[in-house]
Every structure is written in C-alpha cells, then in structure tokens.
C-alpha cells in the first residue's frame, strides 16, 4: 500500500475492513515495524525459495574445512564433531541488525539459509541443483558446492547410516510413496530439557564446572588398578563429556563475539545516544548469557535464542518445541510488575522481536520438506497457557503479551498453541479469540486435561511431568523434563495413510512408484464380505507403519555413536549425569508417535465400499478395482455415486463414524505392538501439514471418489472439504466420538469460521460457546481460519496487494500468497461454518 494511503487511513477503518495487517502496521512501534519488515521471508513459496534468499556457503565451507583438517586426528568421532561445531561458531560471520535488541542467527547473513553439508548427500544435491538458491555468481558457487558435495559423499550422516538400515525398507521409504523424510538424529524435531536449562538454576559455565568434576572423577577411576566392562564404557562417557564441554565453551565464545561487536558499534559507529545505550545493553546481555543464568527478560530471551541457534547449528531442526510464557514469564513479571525496569510497551517490543528472531530462522531443506511445509521453514509451534506441575493455571502476563505481540508483528511462523483448561481466565480467552478473529489462524486450542491424560496413558509419564508438556512439533505433547523429553523425533515416521486403502486394491503394489511396498494381500476382487476387506486394510496399515517405525528405531538405536548430539547433550541433565549421549534410548522414557497424513480418506473410502459394494451391491469389488486403476476415466457417474451416495465423516453419522472408531482402534492396538528403543509405544497422530497437497500426485484414485492428483483432505480428522454438510456441531459431535486419550496421540481438526459473524461481543460469545462444546466433547485440538472467501479470492487475483494475509494450513499458519495454488484452493474449499 502506498505510504500516503496508509497514513490517511485510521486503524479503526482498517479494522472495520478486516485489513488487520495494515492496522497492525500502524499500531506497532517504529522499532517493531523496522524489524518486521527486515525479515527475509524464508518459507518456500510452493516448492521454491523466495528471490534473494540464498544457501549459506560459509557454514558449509567452515564445516568442510575443519572436517578435512581433522581427518587424521586421533579424536573420537563425537569430539571431532564437537570441534567442527565449535569451529563454525568461532568463525562464522555474525551481524547485529539496526534497532535490534536481540541477536543470533542460524546462517551467516540475514538472507542466508544455514546449510549443513554433513547431514545427507541428497540434501547437498538439492543445493547443487537449485540455481535459484545458489548465491551469485551461480556458476562459480555451483563449483564451490560441487567441491563440498564431492568431499561429503559417503561421509554424511545418511550415507553412513544407509548400510545399517534394511535396504528394502529404506528403498520403500525413499520412494516417497509412504513416508516423509529420512531417519536421522540430526534432522527432525528436538525437544529440550527446559526444566534443567531454562529455570534459572544453571547455565553453561556451571555445567562446564560440573563436567570438569565428572571428567576428573571418572578419569581417576579408570586409571586405578583393575579392569571391567564399566571401565570400558567409561571411555565413551569421557569422550561424550569432553565433547559436550567443547560445544558449551564454543557457545560462550560466540556470545562474547556478539558482545564485542555490539561494543565496537557503540564505541566506533553509533552516534545516537539511545541506540548506544541499547548496544551496550546487548553487550552486557551477551557477556552474561549463556555463560550464566539470565537475570531479566532480555537476557532470558537472548539465552533461549542462543540455545536455539546452537541447536540449529548442530542439527537441521524442523520444529521449535518451547513454552515461552512458562519459562520467560517470571522475568517478564520481575521486570514489568515488580522492578518496573521495563514498561509494558518496552516489554511488548522485546516480545515482538523475540517472535521475529524466530520468524527469520531458516535452514536449507530438501524438496519434500519444502512442499510439505509450504510457506514456512518448519513448524515453530510455541506452546502457551496450560498448567504448572501442580495443576495450577500457568497463564501469566507474558501469555497475554505474546498474543498481543503476535497481532502486531503478524508473522506466519512461529505460531502459538494454547493449552486450554477450565481455569483459564476470560481475559486470556479474549486474547486468543482476537488473534484468531484477526486472521492469524492461531493460537490453536489444545485440550489440556485430555492431553495430560493422553501423555500419561501412552507413555507413562508421571502426572507432574505430563503437566509440563510442550508441542514437540505441530501437535504432539512432550514433557520438557529430564527423562520425559524426546531429543529427536525423526520425521520419517510420517505415514501417507491414503496408501493403506489404495494398497488394498493393488495387493500392496504401488502403481505410482512401481514397487511392491505394501503387504501382498489377496486380490481385492476375491473378498466376500466387508470383514475380509477390512482385514486386508488392517494388514496394509500394519505393514506401512512397521516399515517406517523400524527405520526410526534402528536410527535411534545407533544414533548415540553414529550421529551424536554433543550440544543437545550438554544442555540435558540426563547426559551430564550419565555421560551418555542424550539420544541414548536407555535414558529416555520414550515419546514416539507416527504422524498419520491423509488418514480420513481411509474412513470415507471404507464407508463407501461397505455401503455401495457390500450392502447396496451396486458395484462389485472387481468393478471398483478397475475403476480405480483407470482413475475413474469414463466412469464419472459411478465416481459421483461414491462421492454423493456414500456416508462421509464429519456429519454425526454413526455409520461412517463407527468406521473411524474401528480404524483408530486397530491402529491403537497396533501402536502397542510397535515399540520404540526405549520400550515405549508408537501411537498415531492424524494431521497433514501440507502433505495433502504434496501427496496429491502420488496417491491414486480412491473409493471416496477421489482422482489421482486431487488434493487430499486437509486435516487429521477434519472432514473432506465441502463434505461436512450438517454444520459445525455435527463436525464436533463426530470428532467427539473419538476417545482423544486412548484413541491416538492427537487429532488435528481444521474449522473455517466467518469473520463477519464473529465480529464484536456477540461474536466472542458465539465462539466461547462453541469452544465450551468442543471442550465438553473431549476433543484435543481445534484451529480456525477466519478469513473470508472474498479476501482469499482477491489475494489469488492480486497477490501483491495481499502479501500479509495469513491462513491456517494445517498444524501451522502461512502467508496465503506463499502456498501453492492447489493449497490455496483447498483452503477456500473448506466449508465456512456458521455458528449459533
């Protein structure tokens, strides 16, 4: 918008027109406005990165340089790895943006994407093959990338791990038909032991002291007369502790580099006295943290950013498990309410900047990740609200400030996830409503009592720990405690579940990737009744889940030695105590889950088969098999019969809802047969991110009337777009039939609501009553899109004018213009539900 028009229009006028992004721009401080506009948008647009965003060659070069230098070093691998990590932190370019109060970035410069060349050759090949992301001059830098890649061939984590996986399982996974991602300990979602590191009791210097004591103690023990198995293991512990120490010391050093830069700017370049003061405050902050525990809100945020930056130097992180109001809230309270060293406005600036620092983070990722997470770099889902370990309401002033700041900075990532419970105050609920009404698509609502019980049910976490959960990725609660946190959730335990029903018709042969992937169940045409058909479905489900889980189990078992995480271990109490890498399954309780993409297609398809084939006998299974193989070509009438005349999930119809319960029951039973290396269960979690679009070209025709190429349903238990014809309460009633404690890990439910209907106090009351129904039905999750069709259609026609429109895609939000046309259409297609 032209600056003049922006100036002449009042905040109220923009709000009236529901152009919240312009209103926010007028309302936020000059600092926040500058920092918000300074962000280089890193989320892929469809499958491509935005112009100007480039792969960070510096980190890759530093990493490679150190790896070559240490080839002949006598150090254990974990120590070599820690030294590479330290070399990167010691030598990378750092920067401080004008007006910023918080510092630290994963790449070397603001427009770069961190690229870790040691993770996987397939990722390196992406860097080589993507000229849009290669820095200028492309031809020169492509050669640089080639040199780096050729050095790492055979040495990357995945290349090293490949021979230890089962080749057949690996090939099925890498075909891209049933899974998503690769089983690597340095590529996924790392939860953290925040109870150890973020509660103000200790920081890096104290941990280093403790490590020194441990090392001396054990080093002395192993040199006493005697020999036994414990002593043999102790050498590994010593190496692990040494490696942890190297990474923590490097962490302190890079913070000091930031402090020094801030002082240099203040003393040599900056003329504005106020900015000088801010720079000196940055310097003091970085001299304090992460070496020592934070004393105020700025230090606390900075400490967190440093930990994230280091963790993202060590691994490719696809998520951002955190609970910012819970761990930073006490500092907000101290600064704003007790010491009054910060005004609320100043605090809001810091909170907004904290969100922005996360929004700009990016690591170069492969195609399937980009397509599955269109518009964002990863699912930075920050958990807020909830209860403390004693069950008391944990909402605080920072809970509210985070939501207010989110409305001012309006970024698509991170998003907020609210742990609702009956004691949440009305003022907090109003903030949640306002964020959603203003079209952010977040916070989503999580049913805390249900999820605490669910966490205890599936993994046996004690109640005090279960209450401390934060989302590990989009939706899966994970305690932030010593034995409860899961250091790595490997994304490849993500099943493309529509293949389950597809494989029943192909006896497990995948016609798209041309490979026997599923179980060789009998020819579908021979099934005499629904029970035989369902048995085949169950076997295909079990087969697909098993392939994915076996790979993760194998990777987790070997990770401590083959792909250790010394930094993450260095901030984990259990590793400091035991000397074992934090990935070691023996010191973790287990919190594994299978993400179930494209789940509901199974339910609608099974219902269609049951009704039209076995009950109405309108078609035989042989006819249906042929129709699907032909992608319904020339059979439109038959296809529409399967669309229109078979019951569909989400309409409070027991016929199909019972099938959903039966499918979940089978999956839940099998979840307990599958065990992770900690001995715990593998429950399923139906959700999609934008996998429903990514898989559109991979999933063949299905009995719900879907054709190859059609977008799949958008949510984990959301009804098919436009198929929920009985209104919002019927959707909730269908979803409420599921036992959200024992039926699975969590269930994503998308709902679109009309922003016009929800205006004003009446709108809030309608929404509140809807939320009460949702809570009463014991549903664990719900999230909203409250942007009307007209705005979305206008944004499709004129994307330049609607750059800032945000929508809820799946477990995350994205700028509407950044998702592919197919995803856009899929969002518009979702039924807008009228309440009341």
């Amino acid at each position, binding site marked *: 918008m032209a600056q003049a028009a922006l100036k002449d229009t009042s905040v109220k006028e923009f709000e009236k027109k529901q152009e919240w992004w312009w209103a926010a721009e007028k309302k936020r401080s000059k600092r926040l406005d500058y920092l918000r506009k300074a962000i280089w948008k890193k989320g892929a647009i469809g499958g491509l990165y935005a112009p100007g965003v480039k792969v960070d060659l510096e980190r890759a070069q530093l990493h490679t340089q150190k790896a070559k230098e240490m080839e002949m070093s006598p150090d254990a691998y974990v120590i070599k790895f820690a030294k590479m990590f330290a070399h990167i932190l010691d030598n990378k370019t*750092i*920067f401080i*943006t004008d007006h910023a109060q918080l510092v630290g970035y994963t790449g070397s410069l*603001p427009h770069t994407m961190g690229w870790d060349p040691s993770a996987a050759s397939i990722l390196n090949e992406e860097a080589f093959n993507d000229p849009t992301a290669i820095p200028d001059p492309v031809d020169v830098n492509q050669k640089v990338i080639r040199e780096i890649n050729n050095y790492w061939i055979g040495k990357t984590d995945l290349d090293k791990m490949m021979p230890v996986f089962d080749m057949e399982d690996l090939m099925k996974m890498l075909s891209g038909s049933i899974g998503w991602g690769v089983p690597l300990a340095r590529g996924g979602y790392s939860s953290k032991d925040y109870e150890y590191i973020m509660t103000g009791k200790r920081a890096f210097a104290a941990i280093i002291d403790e490590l020194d004591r441990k090392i001396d103690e054990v080093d002395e023990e192993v040199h006493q007369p005697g020999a036994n198995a414990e002593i043999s293991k102790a050498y590994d512990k010593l190496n692990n502790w040494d490696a942890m120490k190297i990474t923590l010391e490097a962490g302190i050093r890079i913070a000091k580099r930031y402090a020094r830069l801030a002082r240099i700017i203040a003393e040599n370049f900056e003329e504005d006295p106020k900015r000088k003061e801010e720079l000196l405050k940055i310097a003091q902050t970085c001299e304090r943290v992460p070496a020592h525990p934070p004393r105020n809100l700025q230090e606390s945020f900075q400490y967190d950013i440093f930990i994230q930056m280091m963790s993202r130097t060590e691994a490719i992180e696809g998520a951002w498990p955190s609970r910012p109001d819970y761990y930073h809230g006490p500092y907000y309270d101290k600064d704003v309410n007790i010491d009054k060293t910060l005004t609320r406005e100043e605090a809001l600036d810091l909170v907004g900047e904290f969100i922005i620092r996360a929004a700009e983070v990016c690591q170069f990722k492969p195609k399937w990740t980009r397509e599955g997470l269109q518009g964002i770099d990863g699912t930075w889902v920050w958990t807020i609200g909830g209860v403390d370990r004693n069950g008391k309401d944990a909402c605080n002033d920072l809970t509210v400030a985070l939501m207010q700041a989110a409305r001012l900075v309006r970024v698509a990532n991170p998003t907020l996830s609210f742990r609702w419970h009956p004691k949440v105050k009305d003022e907090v609920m109003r903030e949640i409503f306002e964020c959603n009404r203003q079209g952010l698509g977040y916070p989503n609502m999580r049913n805390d009592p249900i999820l605490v019980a669910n966490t205890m049910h599936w993994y046996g976490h004690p109640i005090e720990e279960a209450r401390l959960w934060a989302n590990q990725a989009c939706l899966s609660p994970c305690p932030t405690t010593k034995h409860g946190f899961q250091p790595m959730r490997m994304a490849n335990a993500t099943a493309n579940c529509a293949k389950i029903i597809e494989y029943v018709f192909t006896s497990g042969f995948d016609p798209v990737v041309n490979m026997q992937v599923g179980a060789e169940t009998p020819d579908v045409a021979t099934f005499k009744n629904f029970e035989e058909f369902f048995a085949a479905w169950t076997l295909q489900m079990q087969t697909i889940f098993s392939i994915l889980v076996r790979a993760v189990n194998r990777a987790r078992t070997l990770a401590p030695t083959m792909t250790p995480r010394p930094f993450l271990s260095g901030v984990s109490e259990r590793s400091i105590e035991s000397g074992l890498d934090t990935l070691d399954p023996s010191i973790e309780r287990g919190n594994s889950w299978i993400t179930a993409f494209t789940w509901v297609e199974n339910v609608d398809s099974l219902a269609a088969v049951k009704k039209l084939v076995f009950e109405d006998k309108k078609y035989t299974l042989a006819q249906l098999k042929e129709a699907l193989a032909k992608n319904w070509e020339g059979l439109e009438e038959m296809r529409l019969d399967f669309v229109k005349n078979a019951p569909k999930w989400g309409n409070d119809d027991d016929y199909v809802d019972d099938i959903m319960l039966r499918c979940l029951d089978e999956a839940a039973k099998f979840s307990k047969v599958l065990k992770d290396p900690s001995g715990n269960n593998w429950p399923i979690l139906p959700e999609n991110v934008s996998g429903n679009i990514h898989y559109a070209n991979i999933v063949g025709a299905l009995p719900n009337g879907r054709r190859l190429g059609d977008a799949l349903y958008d949510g984990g238990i959301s009804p098919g777009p436009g198929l929920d014809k009985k209104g919002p309460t019927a959707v909730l009633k269908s979803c409420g039939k599921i036992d959200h404690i024992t039926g699975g890990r969590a269930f994503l439910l998308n709902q679109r609501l009309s922003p016009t209907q929800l205006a004003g106090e009446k709108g809030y009351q309608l929404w509140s009553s809807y939320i009460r129904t949702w809570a009463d039905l014991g549903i664990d999750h719900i999230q909203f899109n409250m942007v009307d069709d007209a705005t979305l259609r206008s944004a499709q026609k004129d994307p330049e004018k609607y750059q800032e429109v945000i929508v809820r895609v799946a477990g995350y939000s994205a700028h509407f213009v950044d998702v592919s046309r197919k995803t856009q259409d899929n969002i518009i297609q979702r039924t807008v539900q009228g309440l009341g």
Partner: protein
Amino acid sequence: MTTCKECKSFFPLENDQTKGDCVQRVKDPRQAYYQSRPAKADDDAGACGSFQKKQKT
C-alpha cells in the same frame, strides 16, 4: 603487502593484537546491519574490495 591491520574495518582484540574482527556496515534490500568476522592483523588485504586505509592518529 597491504594487511588487515591497516584497514579501518579491522578491530584488534585487546589481549592479542594479532587477531581481531573485520566489522563492516551492510545495507541489503531489507535491512541495515553491522557484520563481523574474525580476521588476522597480518592477513593479506590486497584483494579485499572493502579495504579502507585507517587514518593515522
């Protein structure tokens, strides 16, 4: 040979004058910032496009 220590952008460490940081002001299409990367006082700056002779005081 022109070296980094002769450049305005070079800031030596207090405890070791042979090492320091190359600090530069950058304006990219979205933001302005100061960047810093480690440099050695005697590094060859002959080919450095950002070299600016330090004024003698």
